[in-house]
């Protein structure tokens, strides 16, 4: 186990382009552990390995899904490539009771919360609009309308307050995920108002991946995004989003503050969208290859890998096992995707309401009749 006390102190900004902006980092791009006075993590070797395993597996899910999309099995896929550490770090910092409100890109968070990747695949394949029970793993449905989920997260956190499930170390809390682009939406700023006024136990986790499709972050804010929180009277912090340890530590600390009654925190995870916005996007139209190359040097997997190597926490067997687990996972995803049935046409009426209306019942029946008649006609 690493002796944290012996780590070199490093509080200068290493990733943020702005002078004077602090970036919380616990692991340098080269895989060196560094000390931070406010954010300590003290993992066992086993835990370090588990985090690495998460990173590798979520990347593998992503790669497989991208391949499936290319082969026409999915309508679209939103890749998390490059954002694995931010997602696994924050995802693992949550307790089972804590509730996550994702966007459409939080496949790594879903993984940490125990959501079967096939649920996500189903959405991108077009067989459902989500369809999982958010309560099941305390992982809300994916949200596509930018920023809308931050209000849902805040309302949920207000419910936690009403339930009295806050104020002790056992309290509950919420993480609201959103992107740098989303920070401009009215809803996100209203969520900041609500969360601060009610002192709700919500952690706003903004993955600043530098882009909102083709739009760079400086089109959304002229100052670092974590500073937005100050304007609403709660703390903001920027963390190296490619550093899984720091992402974990900062999120855990914010969650603990929230669950013990200290209200919201905004975390800006400074990271990079290594791939396209989605499989429909062509980033070569708007960004420089050199930019991507520079960020590749900060790859979230590589740095934890070098750390594990340097600390001699891993051996060839570990990697072999992980490779074969990843292969198996990918193979399962492929197999289950290809086997995934389309829903029946008439199912689209089923859940529009809890209590189905007569009009829908009629439309459903008439579609069923039509389809039967049509099938007979073409025979």
């Amino acid at each position, binding site marked *: 186990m690493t002796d944290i006390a012996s780590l070199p102190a490093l509080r200068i900004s290493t990733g943020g382009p702005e002078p004077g902006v602090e970036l919380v980092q616990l692991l340098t791009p080269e895989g060196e552990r560094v000390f931070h006075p406010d954010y300590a993590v003290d993992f066992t070797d086993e835990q370090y390995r588990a985090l690495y395993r998460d990173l590798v597996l979520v990347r593998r899910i992503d790669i497989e899904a991208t391949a499936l999309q290319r082969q026409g099995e999915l309508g679209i896929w939103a890749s998390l490539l490059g954002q694995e550490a931010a997602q696994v770090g924050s995802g693992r910092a949550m307790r089972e009771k804590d509730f996550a409100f994702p966007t459409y890109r939080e496949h790594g968070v879903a993984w940490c919360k125990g959501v079967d990747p096939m649920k996500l695949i189903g959405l991108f394949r077009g067989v*459902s*609009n*989500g*369809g*999982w*029970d*958010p*309560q*099941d793993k305390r992982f*809300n*449905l994916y949200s596509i*309308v930018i920023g*809308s989920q*931050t*209000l*849902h*997260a*805040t*309302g*949920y*956190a*207000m*419910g*936690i307050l*009403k*339930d009295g499930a806050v104020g002790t170390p056992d309290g509950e809390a919420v993480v609201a995920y959103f992107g740098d682009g989303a920070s401009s939406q*009215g*809803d996100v700023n*209203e*969520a900041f*108002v*609500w969360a601060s*006024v009610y002192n709700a136990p919500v952690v706003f986790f903004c993955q600043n991946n530098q882009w909102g499709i083709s739009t760079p972050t400086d089109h959304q804010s002229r100052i670092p995004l974590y500073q937005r929180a100050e304007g609403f009277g709660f703390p903001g912090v920027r963390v190296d989003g490619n550093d899984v340890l720091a992402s974990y530590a900062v999120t855990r600390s914010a969650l603990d503050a929230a669950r013990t009654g200290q209200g919201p925190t905004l975390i800006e995870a400074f990271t990079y969208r290594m791939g396209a916005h989605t499989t429909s996007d062509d980033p070569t139209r708007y960004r420089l290859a050199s930019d991507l190359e520079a960020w590749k040097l900060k790859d979230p997997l590589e740095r934890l890998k070098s750390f594990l190597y340097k600390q001699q926490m891993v051996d060839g067997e570990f990697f072999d096992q992980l490779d074969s687990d990843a292969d198996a996972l990918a193979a399962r995803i492929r197999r289950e995707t290809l086997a995934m049935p389309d829903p029946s046409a008439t199912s689209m009426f*089923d*859940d*529009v*309401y*809890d*209590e189905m*209306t*007569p*009009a*829908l019942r009629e439309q459903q029946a008439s579609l069923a009749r039509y389809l039967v008649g049509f099938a007979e006609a073409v025979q």
Partner: protein
Amino acid sequence: MAVLTMAKALNTALRTVMESDPKVVVMGEDVGKLGGVFRVTDGLWKDFGEDRVMDTPLAESGIIGTAIGLALRGYRPVCEIQFDGFVYPAYDQIVSQLAKIHARSKGTVKMPVTIRIPFGGGIGAVEHHSESPEAYFAHTAGLKVVACSSPADAYVMLQQAVRCDDPVVFFEPKRRYWEKAEVDVAADLGLADPLWQARVVRPGVDVTLIAYGPMVRTCLDAATAAQEDGHHLEVLDLRSLSPLDLPTVLESVRRTRRAVVVHEAPSYVGLGAELAARLGEELYYEMEAPVLRVTGFDTPYPPSRLEEDYLPDLDRVLHAVDRSLGY
């Protein structure tokens, strides 16, 4: 039996559901100490505390968005939108979120959120305080949309709406808030008409007037006036604007063979159009006249000095009745 204004009936309904279900929370602008600008939440803050009656920050998207989160946590929020014209900032949260979450979750998430909206004109107000936006919601699958027209109905319907596990947009005819009538506050809700059921509020044989919310009273007055001319108008209160209680509507119009739809909202792509389309199709061989519409004009709601000319009134209704009978 008690004689109550509609505002008081609504207030009593809220009190009743709050007493019976601790998960019911009331939220909105100025609903607390002030009791709402129309006093519909009067006294609730004092008796249930600020945890259950929340004066929210001033932002409608925030109100509906956080209500959705509260519903996910097991609460049953009743949101007040202060005036009809202020619901639009929440439009995305209502039509893209609230309306769709049940379907998106394959029915695993219930959204028992009620959105109360004082609506319609006739109170001499400034811009944005007299609108009738019901079509914007009725056209949205996943929402249920109702409008009450009398204190007795207001009392029952609001309780039913709050207890409904689907999101309900609940329109209250603000210019009728102060009209009094008998309300059976001890009535068994289980025996009441379902929320989705239209009701013949005055039987007749010559023409069916179809209305909801504030126009029900106008139609009743028109029917009384028409009686003097020997015309027996049936008045049908839709109550539910989505879903539409088509069987009740058809039953009435099948008898009268003539229908006039009356609403304050503009005519173009409004509820009246849907009723005309539906009746035109279902009763194609039975109607003696086309369905006529008496509505607000296709203009923004005018300055209040012109609202009497804008709003359908007894005379315009009777004018349409004459036209209908003329076919």
